[in-house]
């Protein structure tokens, strides 16, 4: 925070010696961080370059583990279904992330117009789904999608609609709905927190200039909550790439969801159903790299645009 940097800097000027005591506080976190986040990634990179080699003329001899270089990566990228799963989550993200963030933004702006009492109550209602684990949310919506149990299907049926939420063309958007339901309120809260940090004088000035609620929202609030929107967007992109539990749970009731429906599912089934750990490791690494490239790419795109606007 800008306001507090000053005293700290003054202090460091006085005690210029490097402060080794910091490491005692850093060490516990860094230790676990390296052990449970950095090392596994490095180990996965190493594993992704191994393969099971069969000896003997018919390949039936004793298997041994050999170095495969980038073969597993080539193999993964050669699987049409795996590449398609990337395309699927990209399509999913291109539609779902903007819809969810737009909903979050609109709700945050509307709540800002309401008396505090009501705003607080509604905010809690919107935020509630975030406390429901993704798999349980999926089980819930699964029941609301299945014909026979679903009250939605029942009500729509009265009007002659027979929606097939779990059909081949619809299931991706049924999953998108679950994700929107889970995270729209959470993203809304991040935007609300930013809205509250807008100084009141700006509103006063806008009102004196004759701006109505619409203009205030468009000209003042939306530009100023931009940092919150960027943050929520980055988190949503990362979240989309790792889409896993929702399709896995729906798989049972929606035949359209295959083992290669998302990159994460594909890696999971390679590891546990197809017993090909090395290929699964390669897919995990590809997924992590793709998520980081996308979020870094988005951030630098935003930064460049910001610079050119100035």
């Amino acid at each position, binding site marked *: 925070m800008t306001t507090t940097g000053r005293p700290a800097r003054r202090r460091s000027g006085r005690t210029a010696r490097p402060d080794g005591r910091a490491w005692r506080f850093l060490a*516990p976190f860094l230790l676990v961080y390296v052990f449970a986040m950095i090392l596994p990634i490095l180990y996965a990179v190493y594993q992704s370059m191994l393969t099971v080699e069969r000896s003997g003329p018919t390949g039936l001899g004793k298997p041994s583990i050999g170095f495969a270089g980038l073969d597993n990566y080539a193999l993964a990228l050669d699987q049409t279904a795996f590449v398609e799963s990337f395309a699927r989550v990209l399509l999913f993200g291109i539609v779902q992330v903007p819809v969810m963030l737009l909903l979050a933004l609109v709700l945050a702006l509307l709540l800002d117009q309401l008396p505090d009492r009501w705003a607080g109550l509604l905010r809690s209602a919107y935020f509630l789904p975030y406390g429901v684990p993704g798999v349980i949310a999926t089980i819930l919506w699964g029941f609301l999608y299945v014909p026979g149990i679903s009250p939605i299907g029942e009500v729509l049926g009265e009007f002659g609609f027979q929606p097939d939420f779990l059909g081949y063309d619809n299931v991706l958007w049924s999953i998108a709905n679950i994700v929107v339901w889970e995270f729209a309120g959470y993203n809304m809260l991040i935007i609300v927190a930013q809205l509250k940090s807008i100084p009141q004088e700006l509103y006063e000035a806008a009102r004196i200039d004759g701006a109505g609620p619409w203009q205030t929202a468009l000209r003042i609030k939306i530009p100023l909550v931009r940092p919150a929107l960027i943050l929520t967007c980055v988190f949503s992109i990362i979240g989309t790439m790792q889409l896993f539990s929702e399709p896995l749970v729906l798989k049972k009731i929606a035949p359209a969801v295959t083992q290669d429906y998302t990159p994460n599912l594909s890696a999971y089934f390679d590891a546990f159903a197809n017993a090909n*750990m090395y290929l699964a490791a390669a897919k995990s690494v590809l997924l992590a790299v793709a998520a980081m490239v996308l979020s870094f790419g988005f951030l630098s795109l935003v930064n460049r645009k910001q610079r050119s606007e100035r």
Partner: protein
Amino acid sequence: MNATTAPRTGPAAPAPAASRPASRPAPRRTLRPGRIVLVGVVTLAALYFLLPVYWLVIAATKSNASLYGSFGLWFDAPRLLDNLGRVFSYGGHIYPRWALNSLLYAGVGAVLATLLSAAAGFALAKYRFRGREAVFKFVLAGVLLPSTALALPLYLMFSKIGLTDTYWGVLIPSVVSPFGVYLCRIYAESAVPDTVLEAARVDGAGEERIFFTVVLRLMTPALVTVFLFQFVHIWNNYFLPLVMLSEDDKYPITLGLVTWQQAADRVPELTQYTIGGAFVSVIPLAVAMLVLQRYWRTGLTEGSVKE
């Protein structure tokens, strides 16, 4: 997280939040038709977010037969306690065990994660040392690392060293929260004055003692945020326990309920137990969120006011 992101990114952090209620623009100035649309939209949104939870409450009171045979949005011969009794006793009382496991993973994991993050964030904010920015960047890289893409690599490594299918296999990765470190650093910079630290040092207190007695107290609002988010994160996590655990007595609720749901086509009554189990698991967390949301929101704005 939102609390502390807001002050950081906010253009003028000093004192906006405090003056808010008094000078809030009065909503009565809006036009009438606009007002109707406004109320209509926020109500519709509330229905959307609450409908599945409402359905869950209703469904938890039904028998397996009326689950299919009656209208989903209204009661039909409610028998909630009877249902819950069956949920708890099914499979040799496995459900309470899952609930305890979830509580253990999320509770212990979040407390440790909060402590580690607080210490690291405090160190990054309040000490000058060589490599400080490098360490901070190294930690930030972890924020962008997708956590479920990490589950398989973790499994690969933990299976080599025999940590799979143990409580440790789920707990150890759960205590790492790079985002928590980031939040704690930002918060400590503003909420922990150097004068307080120096006064404590003059009084002869050691660094550890200062941290545990003074710093942690000053950082409480940020710590609540970190704890809450980490708790929810661990509680909701599915992929990690799924790959780590094979014995169902170590499962958290999420994993257990999915096994029930997936087995429901062979054992029909499991449909009702899945719903009842989901109902029980949602209630405490929902209450905790509503209570904590209050505390945690006020805590967040406070950080932006402190000079």
